[in-house]
């Protein structure tokens, strides 16, 4: 964003709206807002890979599922502490990404997409078939939200949806802030360099593979965070989180909002969830409409919604400056 005061004001207003939602809106809106933020965390992290580094991965559902199942197993077998559970989910996703990424980052373009797709579906079929451990197609059910305890007697209850909402909001803001820092850090610039010209980056003495692996693991960690938060929201972990159709969601959302901005995936998540709810109210055929919108965006508005808005905001300014 070029216009600093304007974007700062936008950030403050959105924050205020997010904080205020539980006070003014009904339970369903609160729930939807949480879904938007979960998808937002997933997409913002994912877009580090697609938008910043230019790598199309088609298997991030696996890391989402790793987060959810990691959280679920931790809750079932070790400790009901929510924050530790989330940490376990993130670690599980990051570790899985390290393992998968080690093989995938050797390739680019179509082969990278295919490899991540294959590994993602491998995770899916593992979850689906290892019924004794993962519950197969039923998933892990009955994950409860216990209060967050600190040392001593202090407790933060998150059992009610409104209480949980603020935990989700906290992680959402944290994620966006961290991704923002990453994007403007030297590390983020190297990633953009890899996107623009990988060979030249290599000649500059940087190990492109290592950077790719690092950003792969990072984006998977965000997917794991979103997954573990969803496991607590829906109180279950489902195998379809790892399915390739779910892996497509962050890609669609990033594209919808705009690939080359931080706010793109967030706006995209908002539109995605809102559109699904609205369209589903009138018709069952929401996939059809979504497909059509996707077509229009790919054919006509490749900057996404944010790109279009930025263009509109900038044009009058440019005209005024001359």
């Amino acid at each position: 964003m070029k216009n600093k005061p304007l974007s700062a004001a936008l950030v403050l207003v959105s924050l205020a709206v997010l904080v205020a939602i539980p006070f003014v809106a009904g339970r369903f809106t609160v729930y939807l807002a949480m879904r938007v933020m979960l998808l937002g965390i997933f997409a913002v992290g994912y877009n580090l890979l697609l938008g910043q580094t230019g790598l199309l991965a088609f298997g991030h559902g696996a890391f989402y599922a790793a987060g959810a199942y990691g959280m679920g197993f931790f809750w079932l077998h070790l400790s009901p502490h929510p924050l530790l559970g989330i940490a376990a989910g993130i670690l599980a996703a990051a570790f899985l990404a390290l393992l998968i990424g080690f093989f995938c980052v050797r390739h680019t373009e179509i082969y990278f997409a295919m490899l991540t797709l294959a590994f993602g579906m491998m995770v899916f079929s593992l979850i689906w078939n290892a019924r004794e451990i993962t519950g197969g197609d039923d998933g892990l059910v009955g994950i409860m939200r216990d209060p967050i305890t600190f040392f001593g007697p202090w407790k933060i209850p998150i059992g009610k949806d409104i209480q949980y909402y603020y935990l989700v909001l906290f992680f959402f803001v944290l994620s966006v802030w961290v991704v923002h820092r990453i994007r403007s850090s030297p590390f983020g610039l190297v990633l953009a360099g890899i996107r623009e010209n990988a060979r030249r980056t290599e000649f500059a003495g940087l190990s492109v593979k290592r950077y790719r692996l690092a950003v792969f693991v990072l984006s998977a960690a965000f997917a794991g965070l979103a997954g573990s938060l969803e496991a607590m929201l829906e109180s279950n972990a489902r195998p379809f989180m790892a399915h390739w159709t779910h892996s497509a969601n962050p890609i669609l959302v990033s594209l919808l909002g705009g690939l080359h901005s931080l706010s793109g995936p967030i706006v995209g998540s908002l539109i995605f969830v809102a559109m699904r709810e609205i369209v589903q109210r009138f018709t069952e055929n929401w996939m059809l409409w979504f497909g059509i919108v996707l077509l229009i965006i790919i054919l006509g508005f490749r900057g996404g919604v944010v790109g279009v808005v930025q263009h509109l905001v900038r044009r009058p300014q440019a005209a005024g400056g001359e």
Partner: protein
Amino acid sequence: MFIWLVASGLTLIFGVLGVLNFAHGSFYMLGAYFCFTVLRHLGENFWIGLLLGPLFVCATGLVVERFFLRRVYPLALPYQLLLTFAFVLIFDNLVKIAWGGGSLSPPSMDLFGGSIPIAGRKFPVYNLFIIAVGPLVAIGLWLMLERTWWGRIIRAASSDREMASALGVRVPALFTGVFVFGSWLGAVGGGLAVPYVGLLTPGMGDTIIIEAFIVAVIGGLGSLKGAFSAALIIGVLSAFGTRYFPAFDMFLIFILMAAVLLWRPQGLFGEAR
């Protein structure tokens, strides 16, 4: 062998157009559904269904390539993939609208009612017929690509688009033709699957496309020979998997794909790009 048909269309389209078509599974599904509809309206003759059904899919493929895909050739890869993915969403949903969200079972057809005993076991004739169709299509494709004028032009355009165009080949029209032909192959696969699978569901394309991808990638994207051998390997492996490790049959296939991609990223028969 259905997978071979679907994968052959997929790999042909990739080889010539350079587009990985997610919607190819939808063509398979549409082929099956159109075949089913033709069967229901024009009587029980399966062959008419198999002939007419895929023609509708060809028309669909024509529209997809001519009016949409053609515009994204110059764009980056993600856009091409996502465009075809948008069509997956659209077609899956349209099928739900047109034929209902539940599964349909086609009328039982006694085309090859009997079964032939081979080595002490009985094999339904239809299965044998399908086993025969696979290699026949393979030979037909090979003859077409290697021995005819059309095949020569297709090969020329796939190896050097600009040069072919400079030599007077109408490349855009050729691309449309290849895409339509590829979608026809997928649709025939779907049509042939109707009596065998015996159940049509709106999600049937999503499953087959992954398997077809795997076959095409293992064989080497763009290589028909590779797709054929990979389809055989996958078929045998999956049969063994179901027999000996029922829980992990798909898992084995994914392992194989990952191993092939790591060891020979261009696939078994692919050329390095």
